[in-house]
């Protein structure tokens, strides 16, 4: 109910949910049963002690609460906002089985971490410098997590990022209604406060060579994520108004966007597609369609996000494949054909089923490409058949001086998964540095 009201009144679709008031947080914290061997903690990829941090909120120890969260997940502030809690911690909450609303763990976590992440609180005592140096390629969630853990352990850490601003998808790729850009950047500042250095607008290869990285650092962590959404090879993809859904989300994060008068079609059925349609709808587009080649059940997007998109007024068109984009200079329609399964399970086009969806914008959200070209430059680093970097349990690649984590390793999952990778890699890197195994 509150959530819906918040959505209805948010400013042009740009405002995320407000944080809890202290009273709100206290009431919610007291609802927590404090389960033993809590399923919420087990459901968290970073194993945050959820009852532990909630109990500290209830007992008026916000600093202790934030420390409980951030020692497991240094990006606990952004994960509080962007995590699909409905399928992770809150989804595992035992109160679901009491036919009650689960604990609003995400918003409690934001409440607890904001005071620290946005404040001037020193949570973690800095260690003696070890003299070791680690280079991190990519200042997204995986890199920030890895860098933060290493810095806490006393290592010198430099993050290199090609974008103008650090934060990766947290800064550029999250829908505004989940987390605004300022919050993402504040969290990066918090990580910098732990001692990591960030060099933005620094592309590996052109601005800094791989050789330089190896000479400056004993170990490297690569968290470069995924690339853009590749062209579909359709006629008309060069028209004005046709583009990559991720670019659209990044543009929205850049400032005020007014979509009134626009008709938006997003092609795809995953989380990016859902974010794009929900965002477009909240920015005032006249009509927003999601076009997906299969049925609702097969969409990769989370059910709660699908529900939110539907409630935002998005129209779903299932069992369609794009044929071409029409327009003179700019987009006027997406032409599709119907699809269906054959009896042996192949998805095929229905003959003579072509139809037009009038549109002024057509966005593709059909999966990001892997950065195979980048990894080909790194000796000893292997990728699997899906283009994912192959790592061991400690997230070390085939090159003993290179670790990797995040979307480039798992093919594209949640921020919290990237954070977990970064932290695990940091543990492995630290061990390796201290034992001398990764020396220059």
């Amino acid at each position: 109910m509150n959530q819906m009201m918040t959505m209805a009144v948010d400013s042009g679709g740009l405002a995320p949910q407000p944080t809890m008031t202290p009273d709100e947080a206290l009431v919610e914290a007291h609802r927590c049963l404090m389960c033993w061997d809590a399923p919420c903690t087990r459901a968290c990829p970073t194993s945050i002690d959820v009852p532990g941090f909630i109990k500290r909120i209830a007992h008026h120890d916000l600093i202790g609460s934030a420390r409980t969260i951030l020692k497991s997940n240094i990006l606990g502030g952004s994960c509080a906002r962007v995590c699909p809690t409905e399928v992770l911690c809150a989804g595992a909450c035992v109160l679901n089985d009491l036919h009650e609303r689960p604990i609003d763990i995400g918003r409690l976590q934001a409440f607890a971490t904001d005071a620290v992440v946005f404040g001037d609180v020193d949570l973690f005592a800095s260690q003696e410098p070890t003299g070791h140096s680690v280079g991190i390629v990519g200042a997204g969630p995986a890199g920030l997590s890895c860098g933060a853990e290493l810095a806490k352990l006393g290592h010198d850490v430099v993050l290199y990022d090609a974008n103008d601003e650090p934060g990766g998808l947290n800064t550029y790729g999250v829908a505004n209604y989940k987390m605004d850009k300022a919050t993402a950047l504040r969290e990066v500042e918090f990580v910098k406060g732990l001692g990591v250095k960030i060099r933005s607008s620094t592309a590996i290869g052109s601005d800094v060579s791989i050789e330089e990285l190896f000479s400056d650092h004993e170990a490297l962590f690569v968290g470069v994520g995924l690339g853009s959404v590749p062209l579909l090879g359709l006629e008309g993809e060069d028209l004005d108004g046709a583009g990559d859904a991720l670019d659209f989300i990044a543009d929205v994060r850049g400032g005020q966007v007014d979509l009134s008068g626009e008709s938006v079609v997003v092609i795809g059925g995953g989380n990016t597609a859902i974010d794009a349609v929900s965002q477009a709808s909240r920015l005032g587009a006249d009509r927003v369609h999601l076009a997906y080649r299969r049925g609702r059940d097969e969409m990769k997007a989370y059910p709660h996000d699908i529900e939110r998109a539907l409630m935002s007024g998005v129209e779903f068109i299932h069992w369609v494949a794009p044929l071409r984009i029409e327009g003179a200079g700019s987009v006027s329609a997406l032409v599709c054909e119907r699809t269906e399964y054959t009896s042996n399970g192949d998805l095929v086009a229905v003959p003579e089923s072509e139809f037009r969806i009038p549109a002024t914008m057509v966005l593709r959200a059909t999966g990001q490409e892997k950065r195979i070209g980048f990894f080909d430059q790194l000796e000893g680093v292997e990728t699997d058949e899906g283009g994912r970097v192959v790592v061991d349990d400690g997230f070390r690649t085939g090159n003993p001086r290179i670790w990797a984590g995040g979307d480039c390793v798992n093919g594209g999952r949640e921020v919290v998964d990237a954070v977990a990778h970064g932290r695990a890699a940091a543990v492995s890197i630290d061990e390796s540095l201290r034992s001398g195994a990764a020396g220059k």
Partner: protein
Amino acid sequence: MADLSVNICGIESPNPFWLASAPPTNTGDQIARAFDAGWGGAVWKTLGVPVENVYSRYSSVDLNGQRMMGFNNIELITDRSLEDNLIEIEEVKRRYPDNVVVVSLMVDSNPEAWDTIIKQVEQAGADAIELNFGCPHGMSERGMGSAVGQVPEYTCDITGWAKASATVPVFVKLTPNITDITVAARAAKDGGADAVSLINTINSITGVDLDSFVPRPVVGDMSSHGGYCGPAVKPIALNMVAAIAADPYTEDLPISGIGGIATWQDVAEYILLGATNIQVCTAVMHYGYRIVEDMHEGLSNYLDSKGMTSVEELRGLSVNKVTDWQNLDINYVIKATIDQDKCINCGLCYIACFDGAHQAISAERTADDKTKVAIIDDLCVGCNLCSLVCPVQGCITMEERDLGQTHMTWSEYLSDDRPGELYPRPKHGLTIGKA
């Protein structure tokens, strides 16, 4: 529809719900509103020697988000003039002839002082007087309140003075700040009391301001112990009410039950343990006079459901169900049973039993990553703890095991003539220090 009216030492009250002598009964205006809301009677805030109160007066204890689970006050008796109070008593009685107005009194310990004020309040129309021998703060330092209630001889003597002066019934309000309430109740009876009211508040410090280090309520840079009441004290009060009701010496002494009453269930429990009526303060200070509406309906519905037509039928039915421990059946066997269909896998029963009781619950992860708990029957002593911590209604139940064992009390067990065998007890410990 059951009859809710009660008669306590000759006073007819339209229902058993009275307001205790406290801030909610400070003025005639308030009492008039309370009677309009449905309260059957009110004990006027204590009249007596002139006092001035401090400003900061109350503090409370919250528990897991529940406000005022316990409540504490350092307010003294009325700081309004006796003349004003007498005028208002007269007016309230004129307007509400069917409601009961009891006036609480506290004056210096001499018969003349008591005689004077009793005559004044009787003149004003009080239906009864209540001797405040319970207030544990401020007034007790001046030799009144609990300073009287803590000494049986004083209680007896002053009750006697009041009885000598009064033509209306005399209630004696007892302090719980003693070791054995029956001694105080007997003293009141010996002095001629027509009824006792209990409990007054319990000496307390509710907490400390962790920044200024001054206990609450903060009065400048100091505090003082106060009187504790509210839901937290109900169990203590129930035990004292039951003790007086069960004491053969005082079993006929009517009891006006006080302490943490907020709902009809609370009222029913007091009456079951022997109270004739009850008095409420903290719950009204929390929610207002309107709470009496629920009490009316709830108690009435409850009596109907039990096939009872009056409150009197309910009174005292639990008194003989309280006994000394040595009279309990040590062969009464119960064991916990978990309804796995209702279990939400929170694991609270497991950890409570494992760390806090008798290690009689196992926990394991199921294939779908849930915490599955199970009772280890051989180790279960039937202590009830798991059923108390379980957040799901009816999930953990305590079930009686009738294994043909013989009823046997501790006294019988110790005797030479045991009626049967002791049913086997679960064995615990013996892993640490075992060779």
